[in-house]
């Protein structure tokens, strides 16, 4: 029966997802360029939030400094394109790999600790990387960052960039979905819910957590590469801890026990910043108020709230079918 319900849920989600995808595919020629840019930014941010959710929502890990891996991916690509004469595609592959490598090294130290200590060690290791990037003017451009990073001619138009980012996002989402639904994903969630029992039945808890971190950071690195494709610049605030907390908020905003929730959270966040930021310079104040309202009234997030609300119907349908 559980298998049937799972299938049904995914089938229920398949049509809306396909509908949204078709709308997104035909949208660019119909809307102003600015909206094409904002949508592209939403895709990048959504991927970043989804990658964090693998560690935090599915793994229960206190991944407090996820922004660092995003920044490492972005900086790797930017440095490869500006400082070396290697073919461009190598940079695009090197970005996520460098992020995953950073995730492997930092995660290797972090998984030995639990909960808050895990988070604090990650913040300190991440801040170390931030501090180096922030001050190494000769190499990383210091606090100015790097600007005017070249991109292949095929990505030079805003529409092509949009479609490229959308394509990568869809591939990553499918990959993440497969990972979450795989035996590995199930084990990861079991570890989140009860690490002691998992260890007792012979699961290597730390190794699973480390693999989850590496996968999550790899996707964060992809998001970083897409950011460079879109913005053509990098700056140290990509690695600053406030960004990491913002990604965290996106997961909360959308609902971190749902698959697509963080994506929605990322979209809400970008939209808020863009449109509220237009009218007032106090948009973080509004974000703070929204966040507090959310903590008080919708602790499961927007997506979690709707799932909760419609769950009886889904269950009914499952039992009926």
């Amino acid at each position, binding site marked *: 029966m559980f298998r049937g319900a799972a299938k049904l849920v995914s089938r229920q989600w398949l049509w809306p997802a396909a509908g949204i995808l078709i709308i997104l595919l035909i949208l660019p020629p119909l809307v102003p360029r600015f909206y094409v840019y904002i949508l592209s930014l939403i895709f990048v941010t959504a991927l970043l939030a989804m990658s964090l959710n693998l560690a935090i929502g599915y793994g229960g890990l206190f991944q407090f400094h996820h922004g660092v891996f995003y920044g490492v991916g972005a900086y790797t690509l930017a440095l490869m394109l500006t400082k070396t004469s290697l073919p461009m595609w190598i940079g695009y592959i090197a970005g996520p790999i460098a992020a995953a490598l950073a995730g492997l090294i930092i995660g290797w130290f972090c998984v*030995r600790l639990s909960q808050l200590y895990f988070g*604090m060690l990650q913040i300190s290791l991440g801040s170390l990387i931030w501090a180096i990037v922030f*001050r*190494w003017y000769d190499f990383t451009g210091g606090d100015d960052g790097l600007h005017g990073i070249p991109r292949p001619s095929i990505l030079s138009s805003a529409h092509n960039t949009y479609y490229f980012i959308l394509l990568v996002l869809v591939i990553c989402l499918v990959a993440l979905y497969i990972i979450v639904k795989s035996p590995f994903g199930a084990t990861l969630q079991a570890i989140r819910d009860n690490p002691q029992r998992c260890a007792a039945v012979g699961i290597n808890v730390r190794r699973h957590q480390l693999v989850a971190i590496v996968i999550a950071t790899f996707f964060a690195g992809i998001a970083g590469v897409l950011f460079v494709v879109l913005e053509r610049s990098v700056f140290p605030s990509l690695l600053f801890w406030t960004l990491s907390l913002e990604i965290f908020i996106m997961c909360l905003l959308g609902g971190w026990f749902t698959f697509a929730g963080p994506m929605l959270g990322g979209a809400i966040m970008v939209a808020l910043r863009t449109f509220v930021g237009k009218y007032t310079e106090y948009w*973080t*104040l509004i974000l*703070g108020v929204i966040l507090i309202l959310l903590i008080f009234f919708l602790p499961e997030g927007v997506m979690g709230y709707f799932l909760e609300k419609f769950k009886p119907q889904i269950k009914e349908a499952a039992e009926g079918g």
Partner: protein
Amino acid sequence: MLAQSFSFADLASQVLVGLSRAMILFIVCSGLSFVLGVLRVPNVAHGALYMIGAFSAYSISLLFGNSTIGFWLTLFLAPLVVALVSLIAERALFCHLYQREHLMLLLFTFALSLILGDLVKLVWGATYRSVVAPAVLRGSIPIFGSAFPRYNLFLLLVGPLVAVGLWLFVNKTKMGKISRAAAVDREMVGALGINVSWVFATAFVIGCYLAGLGGALVAPTISITLGMDHNIIIEAFLIVTIGGLGNIWGALVGSLIFGVTQALGVLFWPQFAIVFPYTAVVIVLLLRPTGLLKSVW
């Protein structure tokens, strides 16, 4: 660009600068650590409260026309403003959330820091502000053959005073003992007929008061500006972690390590001075992941 040569006098005075920086860090971190120990919440808004302390110090000292007596009143009043703000936030919002998960509490304090940060922008604007130290603390005196600012010496005196005061409060007063007991077992304390909610409120306000005191004390040495909350809070978190979560003496040790390595970094390799303390933190955490001193967790 390594600094090529420096004398013993340079080294000694730089260590003293580091120590006085460590005193500010300690005052801020002891408050953070106290809240962490009693409430078990990493208070992200601590940095914003520190910033409010510095900005209120600016306004209050302006009110007294930068007089000497005004400075001492500022040191007294600015932290009280911060304590009041934190009391309101705690009673209106925070106290309803204690039963929730840790991550929710963390996010609540982050939301609070966003709101407070923007309120500071609303009240004081985005310009640089500065506070003038009173005449008796201005200028510098020669130590080891190099000029050392008097205000930094003053900070070196205040830091230990705060440490002793906090130790007396936690260990010798009834309130301190209750808050320590509440940290270990809040249900048991409640069963003994003590209003745990108010114990938490008191602990939170005292912790935030210390953030405000740190902000008021640092005001004459820096230019007060938006964004100073982001820098201090990350440093404070790392210091509290390497010291041992919730351990006030750990906060002292951590602050000394952080302040002195930062000052030595300025001497040895100015460009990467900021990297030194982070490296020290990473080394400590790799050797002793749960902090140097015993954590109360």
